[in-house]
């Protein structure tokens, strides 16, 4: 549950049905492009949000990448040059020095909320 104190940073984005299982969509939040991914592990459904900007390909495309796992990490592959980003931490798997921002996702009453 969300506490009163930080609700002002929470943005109501869309209905749960607008998300695509095992894939991504993009939202414009406060002028910022945020890629939201839904990953089903068979047991549970996980939600992730990261910045949509591909820092290597230099374009707003990450939501169009393929999601999957590498070792234990849940990742998305950039559709431009195929680097992988850990959806939980934003770290680029191939490049230590590259990282994208991550944001908390909350699901409440079938609405998707992003915290920025």
């Amino acid at each position: 549950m969300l506490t009163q104190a930080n609700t002002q940073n929470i943005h109501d984005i869309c209905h749960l049905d607008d998300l695509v299982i095992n894939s991504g969509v993009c939202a414009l939040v406060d002028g910022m492009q945020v890629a939201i991914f839904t990953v089903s592990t068979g047991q549970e459904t996980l939600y992730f949000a990261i910045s949509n900007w591909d820092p290597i390909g230099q374009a707003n495309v990450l939501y169009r990448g393929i999601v999957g796992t590498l070792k234990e990490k849940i990742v998305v592959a950039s559709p431009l040059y195929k680097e992988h980003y850990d959806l939980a931490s934003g770290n680029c798997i191939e490049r230590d020095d590259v990282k994208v921002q991550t944001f908390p996702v909350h699901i409440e009453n079938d609405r998707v909320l992003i915290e920025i």
Partner: protein
Amino acid sequence: MNHSSQQHIVVIGNGMVGHHFVEQLVNSEYNCRITVLSGESRLAYDRVYLSSYFSGKTAEDLALTDEKTYQDWGVEAVTNAWVTDIDRDSKVVTTKDGNTYSYDKLVLATGSYPFVPPIPGNDQPHCLVYRTIEDLEAISASAQQSKIGVVVGGGLLGLEAANALKQAGLETHVVEFAPQLMAVQLDPMGGDLLKQKIEALGVTVHTQKATEVIEKGQHSRYRMKFADGSHLETDLVLFSAGIRPSDQLAKEFGLVIGERGGIVIDNQCKTSDNDIYAIGECALWEKRIYGLVAPGYAMARAAVADISGNEGAFTGADMSTKLKLMGVEVGSIGDAHVRTPGAQVYTYHDQPAGVYKKLVVDANRSLVLGAVLIGDTSDYDTLLQYSLNGIALPESPQALILPSSGDAPLLGADALGDTATICSCHNVSKGDIVGAIDGGCCSLGDVKSSTKASTGCGGCAALLKNIVDSELEKRGVEVSKAICEHFDFTRQELYHLIQVGGIKSFDELLEKHGTGLGCDICKPAAGSIFASVWNDYVLARQHQPLQDTNDTYLGNMQKDGTYSIVPRVAGGEITPDKLILLGEVAKKYNLYTKITGGQRIDLFGARVEQLPAIWQALVEGGFETGHAYAKALRTVKSCVGSTWCRYGVQDSVTKAIDLENRYKGLRAPHKIKFAVSGCTRECAEAQGKDIGVIATENGWNLYVCGNGGMKPRHADLFATDLDDETLVKYIDRVLMFYAKTADRLQRTSVWMENLEGGLDYLKSVVIDDALGICDELEAQMQLITDSYQCEWKTTIESPEALKRFRQFVNSDEKDSNIQFVSEREQIRPATNAEKYAAGKAIPVAIV
């Protein structure tokens, strides 16, 4: 923590070497307090990759560390802390703001600064240098107001700077005082060849020019006057005429300095003051300054060892270099100038190909002393290993630089001893790599992160991979042929499992035969197999997350995230009405229009949300998708053939159209291209295609497994004088057999090269039905052709599928980073510089 018992180490300068020192000292776990005084406004960044700033990297991308990391390490880091005073008696340094720091040990890592020759006029605006991020910002800004740029200095850095100016769109010149380029690393012959190559790329090189004055120009901003009376007009002057050690502090406060500058150090990197060390480009060791990172890192390690009471010394470093300048490969090893008495030389020069190689060996012809390589540096790693590790040369040393005739003595990973240095940036020996593998690393990636090998300049990458592969194989680790970590199968095995098991979804496949959640390798491969076997609609809900973005959005993603649109134009035949429609659509949506190499028309620059409307218009006008985005049949090229051509013997256009319509939509391990020529003159270039058909008086000759692209291969003649029906039958069988048995992303040419038994085997399978599968192959192809649907037509009719074609789920805004400018009356993506200039650069979050 008790500070008083701890040594306080103060480091002046937070360049690459200063940072490496801090990192090594922290890793050594020596009990001390560290303070870093950075003269720049930011912490250490990667100067070696500085030029990538011009190809879009930001200061954040180049950063080697950040405040948080230093905090976590317990290191106090101060930026804008230019040190102006060292009191060696009371051991205190003072910064320009008057802050003081007392030290137990002081480390000078002040680097160097660019040398600007004392030419009158060198201090005007737009006269710049190339060393820091701020320098690059200034160059960027100046380039926007300039047409012509001149780099003064034709050394390694000068040429890198010239490349940057050229990328910024300037007419670029290099002015060099010496008679040749890169005089430090190359011999005159090599320098000459490099000059030719660079000039061929559009950069003008002026050697033996001494600039006397930079004055106001007549056509451009400035005019540079040379000693020989000639002149050159330019808007921007970039000095890259060498570096000078930043030794002012040391000099002023009484440390011993070399005759021509540089802080004198011993093997422990100590200066003439027992408590002060100097490392990196400011240090002078045995009368030498080392202008590369690897030696600086080695000095940092030696200083850390000494401070923490360990063994370790700096005993010189190798200055060999390999680089790619504007796409030209250049390598220089050791004694490139043949200075060793008695040294002998082998040279190889292939003028037409622009390749020059020189090998310098000792008098006994048993050791490599040096080498120069231009145009082809593939021998660099091997030669460097011979030279660094004193490996005895084979009988005929010249074989090392001759083009591989197949019997060149390859220096396998096994020939290297355990002490051989593999990565000089991070001082990793072969023994360290073997140790890492023994310690449990079982992939190249593991070894890289455990030893740091190959994470500096990257020059050792190929050799590292060699050693890792060879060591893993020795330990019986099969260098796996599995498609990826989720399936322990080859593509061919997966195909079989899917077909025989009647598997129709990725989840089912994963559950029965895989682990994890899949990835960008196995998902598209499985998607392609589902399409080859069942030919479902590729965006059917269960297949959608499997597709590469190109297949998901049924277009090719371009560099800025927009898509291209390539409708099918079977055989290259198009009616005027359809041409007009293409023109109208392109105009309405302001798309860039180009004739492709595949006889059709590509419309570029469509935003994801525009795709459905554009395709709606095209489908209504009778177009279908051209599958330019898919690993599938692309085009069937045709020549005009007997209908019009006076030499044609068959109607190649009709044949091409029929074939294209038969096989369109066929998904395969890689793309497939056909061509049909109307006679032996072969105007359609059918012998360069996966399937080539050439008309004869009696029918058709069929060629298979040709390829253009990266490694061209002529197609093999498969069967002659075929009638229409047999032609199609054979093509059905060849393609289906390919789709079934090839590896992921293997074109027919590579598949054929790897097919045991080769062409004869393929003939026996397809013509003689040696495996008894021809009926099955044909039936499979029939299923595919019968179930063809235009994916775009299906998509625009499905509200569910259309939902994906939007940039934002919650807004109708457009992606503000997609910006175009106009060139030759059409759009093209704006460059970063253009976006900045227009003030339209979007703020993006970077962590």
